[in-house]
């Protein structure tokens, strides 16, 4: 089943080990240094929580963090909803007018340079005379992240056995009801994963937020960026570690959840 597995040469082992070390070493170093008590980022002065305390006393930073969490949760929820609808439309709508345009509009933002997306959204908001702030950033993030949700949910929908739905309809369910009772529970883990992906993408975004935000709603990456430009500060290590912990926690929860649902799915499959 699993492709090329079984013959693992020393070269394979070495490239895997080096690759993973390359991916993780900088992050591990950053996390370790966030507990460094020395003000000099590069001198080790013993373990300490000092920079975390500093972060929690930094009002501007905390406000930016809260703003980012707010934007991320609202935009991820909107994106999960719209993205799922888009995935259903794409995988079950067969042919309709403008289908090619629709899928193009959903796939292009995944790779579109953020400076273009950010600039164009800003010009839209200016032309519509919308005051920039929380809602403009949220709408911008929803636009970007709903495409990721759509792709994740669409690929899951593609692997769901349609005969289950057809069976439900043969037994007298309306198509919509068959979808909601049979297919929706099966794609729920994908929707949850999509929500989380949207949440973290929004939490991370610097470029689009810089274009679309107003003076009153500075997000965390914008704040971090302006600090980083001035040089390395130990407090930033602490903030980054907290964000990494939050994201890692979400990923663990998601993989546990998908394990639970998939083991349930597997036990149901032989039927």
């Amino acid at each position, binding site marked *: 089943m699993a492709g090329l597995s079984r013959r693992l040469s020393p070269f394979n082992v070495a490239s895997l080990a080096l690759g993973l070390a390359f*991916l993780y070493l900088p992050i591990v170093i950053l996390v370790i240094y966030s507990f460094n008590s020395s003000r000099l980022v590069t001198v080790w002065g013993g373990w300490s929580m000092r920079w975390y305390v500093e972060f929690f006393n930094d009002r501007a930073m905390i406000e930016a963090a809260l703003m980012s969490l707010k934007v991320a949760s609202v935009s991820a929820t909107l994106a999960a909803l719209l993205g799922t609808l888009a995935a259903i*439309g794409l995988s079950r709508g067969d042919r*309709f007018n403008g289908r090619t345009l629709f899928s193009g509009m959903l796939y292009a933002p995944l790779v579109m340079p953020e400076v273009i997306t950010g600039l164009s959204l800003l010009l839209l908001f200016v032309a519509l005379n919308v005051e920039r702030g929380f809602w403009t950033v949220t709408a911008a993030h929803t636009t970007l992240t709903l495409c990721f949700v759509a792709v994740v949910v669409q690929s899951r929908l593609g692997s769901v056995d349609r005969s289950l739905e057809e069976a439900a309809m043969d037994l007298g369910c309306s198509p919509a009801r068959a979808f909601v009772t049979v297919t929706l529970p099966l794609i729920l883990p994908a929707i949850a994963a999509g929500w989380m992906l949207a949440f973290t993408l929004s939490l991370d975004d610097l470029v689009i937020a810089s274009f679309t935000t107003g003076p009153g709603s500075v997000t965390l990456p914008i704040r971090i960026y302006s600090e980083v430009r001035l040089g390395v500060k130990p407090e930033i290590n602490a903030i980054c570690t907290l964000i990494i912990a939050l994201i890692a926690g979400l990923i663990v929860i998601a993989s546990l959840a998908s394990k639970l649902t998939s083991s349930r799915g597997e036990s149901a499959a032989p039927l």
Partner: protein
Amino acid sequence: MSARRVFTRPARLAAIAPYLWMLLFFMVPFGFVLKISLSQTAIAQPPYLPLFDLSQGLAAIKDAAAMLSLDNFRLLASDNLYVLSYFRSLVVAVISTSILLVIGYPIAYGMARLPARWQPFAMVLVIIPFWTSFLIRIYAWINILQHDGLLNKMLLALHLVSTPVVWLSTDSAMYLGIVYSYLPFMILPLYATLALMDPALLEAAADLGAPSWRAFWLITFPLSLPGVGAGILLCFIPIVGEFVTPDLLAGSNALMVGQTLWLEFFTNKDWPVASAAAVVLLILLIPPLLLYDRLQRRQLEGGR
């Protein structure tokens, strides 16, 4: 079969909301970018001269049409700063994507050869950095690369260099940062095609006496080409417009186009020129974007 037909209607209805959303927030804004790129810079808020005002009737539109100007594009073409930044962006994208392919392929290949039980675990390990912020990952490298950072300390301790090396604000630091940020984007599509390969093909090649490198070139590599294509596009397109990494890691003597656009917009407040720069960038990216769209559609919709 007929049951499926019936279902397409609510499914089409489901698409309406996201369809309208994407039209409004993705397609329509390009119209504004194009419009502003043809208008003239003004010291005002917003900093451009209004082009059309439909409320003033047909005559106003005629006036406005007379005011349409390609000046911003002429500026882009005549000023070396812009031409060079487009050129640099393409060069950086080509070089980084090639490095990514060379580094990413062996890793993806190693993943595909892991025992089946370990593969999902390896995939999660590759995905986690992708979920971690670009900004944080670049920042992590600044920690390491700065003047008295870990790298210089290690090199000094090992007596490989006698004075600290300048790493930050160099092209090497930028390439390192870009390769680091985009590596998961290269590995995952490669792994996806390699994991699906039938090992019987390689066994057959071995039975027929092909040495393993030959089997790799004649069988594995050609079969992984869709993954290679997807990986290249997933990296190349966003790298051309990259802003954060060159801004934080490269020196300021040569700019990528993402940086020039940012500079025109935020520092010079020249929205029309920034828009013109975006239009040109978009035109450059249309061919790879179309290719990518086709690949994505084939993968997600089975070539429908």
